[in-house]
């Protein structure tokens, strides 16, 4: 019997993932990853009650369950990355690194050590086998699809991963949980970034960010106001700038080296091209055709060409896109299939 380690967060998705694997005849055990322990925070992630919920589900399913400590790894690969990116004036997506490093590296290694053949999570995504090759694809629930957060998984690992919820909708998952009487059936969806309780700005201040005011300039470099420290702003943001211009202005760019925020009319937010770094390819990519590219999780994906320019991958949209934000991931799709993705660099 093949052995599967399921990453259980104490939420309904991973609970149902564990149930489905058990039903499918796998030898299943659950692991709760203890990632973060901020005594001041009442945030729900990694909390005691979540690990207890996961334990209760495991006991119901009669599978072994362990809480494993990954706090050092989480601090190094997720928290420090998050802080570093904001220092650079970028807007990071910590969930992607958490998947890449914490789940599909550190946990996968531990799971294999514990005898697991596979690692499973409750992500809404699919791994499709064609011949001897494995491909990462969108989950069938278009509203919940989480393939965007998973683009960075090394291709060679896809054969060791199972996403049991890929063919399910969220409603179906809840229905399974209800039917099976899992205690997590009606639990609320976790939202936003797990280690941030309210406002990321408060978090950054607690981690050594000092609010250093600087100039706000328009696109031509004219000083039009003062900002309260560049990490307080995100590209595309309107308001909070305290600049009266007679027309709405938006954050167009953040220049950390000069401690400057560029703000101007919304039209300047629209751009066609940008470079990505650390491209992870999960399929062949061709220059002579267009792909659907998502530049943030909630972006619906727009047609773009991918070319190599100066040893870098350049993404060129057919139509200009609003707020292409450095630090976010650009994920390239061919239909449902994830072709690859990388991190957005400062736009051109």
């Amino acid at each position, binding site marked *: 019997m093949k052995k599967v380690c399921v990453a259980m967060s104490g939420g309904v998705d991973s609970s149902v993932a564990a149930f489905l694997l058990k039903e499918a005849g796998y030898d299943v*055990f659950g692991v*709760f990853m*203890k990632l973060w*322990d901020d005594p001041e925070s009442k945030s729900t992630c990694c909390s*005691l009650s979540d*690990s*207890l919920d996961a*334990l209760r589900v495991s006991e119901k399913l009669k599978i*072994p369950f*362990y*809480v*494993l*400590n990954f706090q050092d790894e989480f601090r190094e690969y997720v928290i420090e990355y998050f802080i570093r990116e904001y220092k650079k004036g970028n807007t990071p997506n910590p969930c992607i690194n958490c998947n890449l490093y914490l789940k599909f590296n550190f946990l996968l*290694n*531990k799971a*294999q*050590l*514990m*005898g697991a053949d596979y690692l499973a999570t409750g992500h809404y995504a699919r791994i499709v086998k064609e011949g001897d090759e494995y491909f990462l694809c969108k989950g069938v629930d278009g509203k919940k699809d989480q393939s965007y957060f998973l683009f960075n998984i090394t291709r060679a690992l896809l054969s060791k991963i199972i996403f049991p919820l890929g063919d399910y909708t969220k409603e179906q998952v809840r229905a399974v949980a209800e039917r099976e009487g899992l205690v997590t059936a009606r639990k609320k969806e976790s939202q936003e970034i797990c280690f941030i309780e309210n406002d990321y700005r408060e978090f950054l201040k607690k981690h050594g960010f000092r609010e250093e005011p600087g100039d706000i300039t328009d696109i031509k470099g004219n000083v039009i106001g003062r900002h309260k420290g560049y990490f307080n702003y995100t590209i595309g943001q309107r308001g909070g700038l305290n600049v009266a211009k007679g027309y709405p202005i938006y954050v167009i760019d953040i220049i950390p080296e000069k401690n400057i925020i560029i703000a101007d009319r919304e039209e300047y937010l629209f751009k066609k091209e940008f470079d990505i770094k650390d491209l992870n390819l999960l399929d062949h990519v061709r220059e002579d055709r267009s792909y659907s590219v998502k530049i943030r999780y909630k972006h619906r994906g727009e047609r773009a060409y991918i070319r190599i320019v100066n040893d870098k991958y350049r993404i060129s949209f057919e139509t200009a896109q609003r707020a292409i934000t450095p630090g976010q991931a650009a994920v390239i799709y061919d239909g449902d299939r994830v072709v690859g993705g990388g991190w957005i660099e400062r736009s051109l």
Partner: protein
Amino acid sequence: MKKVYFDHNATTPVHPEVAKAIMPFLNEKFGNPSSIHWAGREVRAYVEEAREKVANLVNAQHSEIIFTSCGSEGDNMAIKGVLMGNLSKGRHMITTIVEHPAVYRTCKFLEDYGFEVTYIPVDNYGMIDPEDIRRAIRKDTVLISVMYANNETGNIFPIKEIADIAKEHDIIFHTDAVQVVGKIPIDVKELGVDILTASGHKFNAPKGVGFQYIRQGVKVLPLISGGHQERELRAGTENMIGIVAIGEAARIAKEEHQKKEQEIRYLRDKLERYILGNIPETYINGHPERRLYNTSNISFKYIEAEALLVMLDMKGIAVSTGSACSSGATEPSYVLQAMNLDPLCSRGALRISLGYGNTEDEVDYFISVLPEIVEKIRSMSPFYKKK
């Protein structure tokens, strides 16, 4: 799957005779021992009988035994009760850095309220030097609290010597004997301790009951105020089930001390001998001789004990590592850290603690699956490969 329980320092199974003794209190014997009528009188008699059995176990007077809910309550009562009850004498106490959190955290709590605490270090064997305690004594020292045996290493501390030092200086001496009561014979008079804390579930009574020996004449304030129960030192309607159980467990322990020690020591030694002889780079943590006969704290160098614990669990074997946080994630052991072990050793420390019900078959099963698991984990350890 075969299930083997080697974690008796965490808790123990309820002895069948204890389970039998408490049955009437789940059924017809429901009275409140403080009641004057027949329902109260019949259960009151059982409370006092249990008190006598417990007193016999540690050679105390009947009136020197107070029932509590657990070891942590006992430790809290001893420390807070003594310090609060003797404010006119001073606000300083002495303890060790390897105490159970029930003592350690209580001390930390009191430090926040203006009390002062001196923490005595341990050597590489995890032992304390009584002379360190003598040197730490001040004019305003009110209490010395030192555990009888350490829960992680099983080290047995020189309690009589410390008690003598305390007596010389007219300081109250408390010992957390949670890991000792029921395992080896205790004579509180001979030891000369003033307060001794014990917990029922560590010697085959159920969870939720403990006892406190408080020498006649020692001034302690109650932790829980209220009714007249337990000589006004511990209010609250008596936990009949727990009290009857701990009395019965005390009776059994006293009768079977010798037999139990012989049997369990044999199993523990066999297990240790096998590991040290057959698995390379394994080391016993703790004092070579002055150690509980049931406990084995072994370091498997180059291994994360967390992985070892999990893989043994998958084979049905329950053991433990140093400490666990509230969610169950393993944390570095503060006891082994205090002993200054090589981190490559302390991270791979497993605590095996045997007790009532364990058999040689179980030990054989354990040593039959262990080497392969250790080898597998080591083969994936970057430290082991580098070697």
